[in-house]
């Protein structure tokens, strides 16, 4: 009976590898977690409610600013509009047209 198990599909070998590296990986792989992540694409973390409340609490003090090299604004720090990366359209023409 043991001999039958010798031929394991490459997929199952890969699965075992993955589970060895990430033992807490969800039981339903194709399900809700993936899909919800896909649906939430583009979500940013600036919350105007938090921002305004923090501003009110601090009164006239400056809000703690993000470190200049921080690219993603998240966590305890309350972002300011200046921290959010500017979304500007490409003013440069496509190089395909060059």
């Amino acid at each position, binding site marked *: 009976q043991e001999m039958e198990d010798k031929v394991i*599909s*490459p997929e199952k070998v*890969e699965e075992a590898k993955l589970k060895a*590296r990430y033992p807490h990986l969800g039981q339903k792989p194709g399900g809700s977690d993936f899909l*919800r992540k896909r*649906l939430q694409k583009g979500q940013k973390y600036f919350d105007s409610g938090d921002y305004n409340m923090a501003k009110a609490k601090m009164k006239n003090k400056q809000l703690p600013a993000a470190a200049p090299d921080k690219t993603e604004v998240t966590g305890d720090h309350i972002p300011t509009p200046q921290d959010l990366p500017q979304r500007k359209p490409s003013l440069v023409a496509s190089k395909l047209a060059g």
Partner: protein
Amino acid sequence: LAGFGNLMQDVLWCFSQVKGTVDIGVTEADIISTVEFNHTGELLATGDKGGRVVIFQREQESKNQPHRRGEYNVYSTFQSHEPEFDYLKSLEIEEKINKIRWLPQQNAAYFLLSTNDKTVKLWKVSERDKRPEGYNLKDEDGRLRDPSMITVLRVPVLRPMDLMVEATPRRVFANAHTYHINSISVNSDYETYMSADDLRINLWNFEITNQSFNIVDIKPANMEELTEVITAAEFHPHHCNTFVYSSSKGTIRLCDMRTSALCDRHAKFFEEPEDPSNRSFFSEIISSISDVKFSHSGRYIMTRDYLTVKVWDLNMENRPIETYQVHDYLRSKLCSLYENDCIFDKFECVWNGSDSVIMTGSYNNFFRMFDRNTKRDVTLEASRENSKPRAILKPRKVCVGGKRRKDEISVDSLDFSKKILHTAWHPSENIIAVAATNNLYIFQDKVN
């Protein structure tokens, strides 16, 4: 269609042109995100991550240069979409052009639909080669003339001018999608089109921008119960009441708009049975369909999932009639492909004009063609190394294990950052456009 490749050995693909620059680091905005020929093949449109559209036009064939079988040159370029921020939902909206679809030509102007994640736009591309001269009330610079000086009435006449191609947005179809638009498809009635996002499909009339009909809604009442999303959708090429949509679970549903206003119940359901003992963590992810395309005949649909391309007969729902392995050697690399997110890459697939050959992309700038009649397949590469004019492309081969031949490449040497996700095939000729990151390659079959 003379000389149309029914036998793979008869078709030798040659390099024709490459557009774009050779950069050491690729600017993200330059990454091509969609490629589409128009219905005659005269025009070829590309969209990129920077929200820009570039349209190429095939030049008239000249008797003096028979070898240059109509090269594609820039015809028009414009900024279609710009980045936006939805402050209410704290959502960043990318300007990336997800899809371009042409409308069939009905007058001198060309029309196309382009879409990003949230907004579809109808663009009119038209030529201006005449200009009115001799206005009565203003001089040639446009300055108003002193009315007291005008004693004679003159009527402007149209005089020829240098050709100018203008692109203007004629319609903006906005605010109809909560989720991200993945597909648009023009209906064969030429009056309506559909746009599909992860959970819903809407039907639009070209003339009406402030309303659309919702025709499919798979959003569950409780989002915790979400099990699948819509990945692609397309109208039948001839039957204006029929469309298909594919899902992340590897299934395809065909719907008939005549049966009910909301097409939540499918007319046909295409699914290949799976051996449960083969099921792994990766099964559902690699079965997710990234593209679905009707054949030109309307009799078949083709689907692309991570490792295969399948052809389905509309009359047989329980399994595909053909399955082609694109790069099965990746099955033993799924773990690392999951870790570097490549397993989520969305490859597209295309039919040739006679539905006899299908094409799709792979990694390392490889793309694959499958001849449905002869069952032969070929792997070709889009590379500047093979970019001498009319140079014949040499078939490429990936070595799976053991001894690697001189001209083969081993699986571990494949460059997974060089992915060919978007390709297009001329509607009637053997001319293909292949998007390789920020470069557009055009290949043609050998002219004898």
